[in-house]
């Protein structure tokens, strides 16, 4: 190859290979320049905020900002040192400063993440810090014996640096044990792992119900004549184009106890007036409404795969003596697998991060991890919210990577 092209030249005397390369790289540059503005925009408005959030999930300023003397003492005395009078003196000095700067609540909140029950401890001690006299160790412990607890000191040590991974520990339900080491929190304090697991289970149930509902209609759409299927396709696309809030409102109207579905059931005599079904403000509400919201995302990929399956295969199988069930199971179903994979992954990815619908129809037990992230944002527990969001993000990115591998991101289409 090189031998034949290296001798050739273009009309202006340049070697052909170099000219080709130059033209190619120019074309590449041109193509890239078209994408560049958007890429820059997305980096600024999407990648950067997420990077900022990740940084925030490690940011540890609640305590470290207001306890500089204690931080200095920790820096001088490595982990495992005995907590001496010097440490207590630094703590009391910091507590006095906190009281003056009105930050004991903030500092206590930070420690409270890993050692529950410390906000009141800090507030009470800070109020009296000015009046304490040496020896400070005895003075503080006299105020509250908890000031001698090893777990409190371990928590203060890890909170006194500017950055820490503590919030990730909290996000997987770990707390400081009695000796100060990390341990699983008391049972009544464990919530996040449970919520992550529940989010995944509910998303799986929603994905499955989407698949069960989408399969028959996608098959029907793929096999009907054009004119009819176009009309029916509108019925799939209309929900897709309708506001999410409208659809959620509709489900509230349909499912509530004095709602349309219950009224119909009562009118038909299927249930008594006092036996109205509770279908909203619980998991049922979340599952039903989200299945409806995400169903088009399952129908469309399934449809586009089924459309390409020639009906002659099924006929051939039948003519070779297969029953209709065997034909479906052995011939048709395997060919729809790419569509099933594409639709299921897409629906699952979208379901895992859903916020609005569970917030409106989920009640207490239909809440997903997104709702917890929002809860902590509203309570200004920024770092914990960011850590939970980061864990969710990692899960989503893994699924997204899987989707790209199995389906290919450029295969996404609407309508």
């Amino acid at each position, binding site marked *: 190859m090189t031998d034949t092209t290296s001798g050739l030249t273009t009309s202006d005397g340049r070697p052909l290979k170099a000219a080709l390369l130059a033209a190619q790289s120019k074309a590449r540059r041109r193509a890239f320049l078209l994408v560049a503005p958007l890429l820059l925009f997305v980096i600024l408005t999407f990648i950067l905020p997420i990077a900022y959030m990740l940084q925030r999930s490690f940011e540890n300023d609640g305590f470290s900002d207001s306890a500089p003397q204690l931080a200095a003492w920790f820096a001088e005395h490595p982990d495992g040192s005995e907590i001496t009078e010097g440490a207590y003196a630094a703590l009391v000095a910091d507590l006095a400063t906190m009281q003056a*700067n*009105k*930050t*004991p*609540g*903030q500092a206590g*909140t930070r420690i*409270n993440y890993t050692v*529950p*029950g410390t*906000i*009141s401890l800090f*507030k*009470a001690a800070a109020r009296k810090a000015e009046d304490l006299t040496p020896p400070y160790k005895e003075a503080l412990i006299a105020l509250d014996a908890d000031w001698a607890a090893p777990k409190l000191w371990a928590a203060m040590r890890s909170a006194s640096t500017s950055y820490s991974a503590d919030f990730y520990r909290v996000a997987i339900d770990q707390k400081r044990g009695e000796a100060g080491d990390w341990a699983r929190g008391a*049972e*009544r*304090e*464990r*919530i996040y792992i*449970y*919520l992550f697991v529940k989010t995944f289970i509910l998303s799986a149930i929603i994905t499955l119900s989407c698949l069960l509902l989408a399969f028959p209609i996608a098959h029907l759409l793929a096999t009907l004549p054009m004119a009819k299927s176009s009309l029916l396709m509108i019925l799939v696309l209309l929900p897709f184009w309708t506001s999410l809030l409208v659809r959620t409102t509709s489900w509230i109207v349909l499912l*509530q*106890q*004095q709602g349309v579905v219950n009224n119909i059931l009562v009118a038909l005599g299927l249930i008594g007036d006092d036996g*109205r079904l*509770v279908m*909203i*403000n619980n998991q049922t509400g979340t599952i039903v409404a989200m299945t409806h919201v995400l169903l088009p995302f399952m129908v469309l990929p399934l449809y586009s795969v089924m459309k390409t399956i020639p009906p002659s295969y099924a006929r051939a199988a039948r003519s070779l003596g297969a029953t209709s069930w065997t034909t479906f199971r052995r011939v048709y179903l395997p060919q729809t697998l790419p569509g099933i994979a594409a639709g299921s992954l897409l629906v699952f990815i979208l379901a895992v991060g859903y916020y609005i619908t569970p917030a409106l129809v989920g*009640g*207490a*037990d239909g*809440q997903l991890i997104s709702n*917890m992230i929002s*809860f902590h*944002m*509203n*309570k*200004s527990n*920024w770092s914990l919210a960011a850590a939970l969001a980061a864990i969710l993000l990692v899960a989503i990115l893994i699924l997204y990577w899987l989707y790209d591998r199995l389906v290919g991101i450029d295969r996404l289409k609407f309508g």
Partner: protein
Amino acid sequence: MKKLLVLSTALTAVAFSAGADVTVMSWGGDYTKSQVEAYHKPFTAATGTAVISVDSDNPAPAVKAMVEAGNVTIDVADVEYADAIRLCDDGMLEEIDPAVLPAAPDGTPATDDFLPGALTDCAVTTIVFSTIFAYDTTKFPEGPTTIADFFDLEKFPGKRAMRKGAKANMEMALMADGVPAAEVYAMLETPEGQDRAFAMLDKIKKDTIWWEAGAQPPQLLADGEVAMTTAYNGRIFAAAVGEGKPFGTVWDGQVYEYDLLVIPKGAPNPEGALEFIKFATSTQPLADQAKWISYGPARMSSGPLVGLYQDGKTEMAPFMPTAEANLTNALASSYEFWVDRDAELNERFNAWLVAN
């Protein structure tokens, strides 16, 4: 030159704020409506300053979030007592000198005119409200009568609703468990007392819907979603008397407290905010508010001016949290308790809520 620059900036700032709107964050629904009628509209009529109303489930966490993010968009917030104290302790509110508040019409200075404790370093009380429980009279014609009935699913079957948070629920649970009102907070200080409250809540957890906005409980009752719910007394009053809904209020075991106006640190228009608070907490607006919702005014001079409900025939006095008949088994919410323990108990409450 530099001085001149500073001066001109300061001048434009003042000129800007004089014409600027005041944004007030409150609790939405009928309560915000009562404030709009009694404070906002007369304030705009008197000063020409427009008031923008923003709704929130609870303005206190929103204020905290805004101040911490350095991103305050509101000028005045309506918060509960413990939250006002805590936010002030944490340096998140502007201080308000009680001396600037207008005196009563008879000349009594504001500091003597307000109820005891109603003026704090950073906040001015507007009303006394109460968390009570209400029920659907079509489902229980005889009606529950005690707080214990709320937790009794056998005697009074049906769904319940409670506020999503520890405050008031813990107190009501203990009172329902037979703890006298006077001992509730001493008991809640101890881990055993907290366990006891949660054990009581456990009894109805499976049948309870958790509301967040104050407008939700009357809605849940009206839609037949629940048979009984805890609620702010004024909301139930507005639905029952104002709209004729079949709701009954049980005052036994009520938890009453103050509601206050505050100015977040870094508010866009602090001067306007202070003017608004001075106006809203003067004698007449406080008395007028009771025309729209059954909350007691915080000024003694407003008391005699409280007349009839807007329908022109309902006497307001028996519907107030502080009416003699309503206080037989009532608890004054302790801000000392909640200032320090709010975050800790809510954390436990949320974990309890999520766990099955």
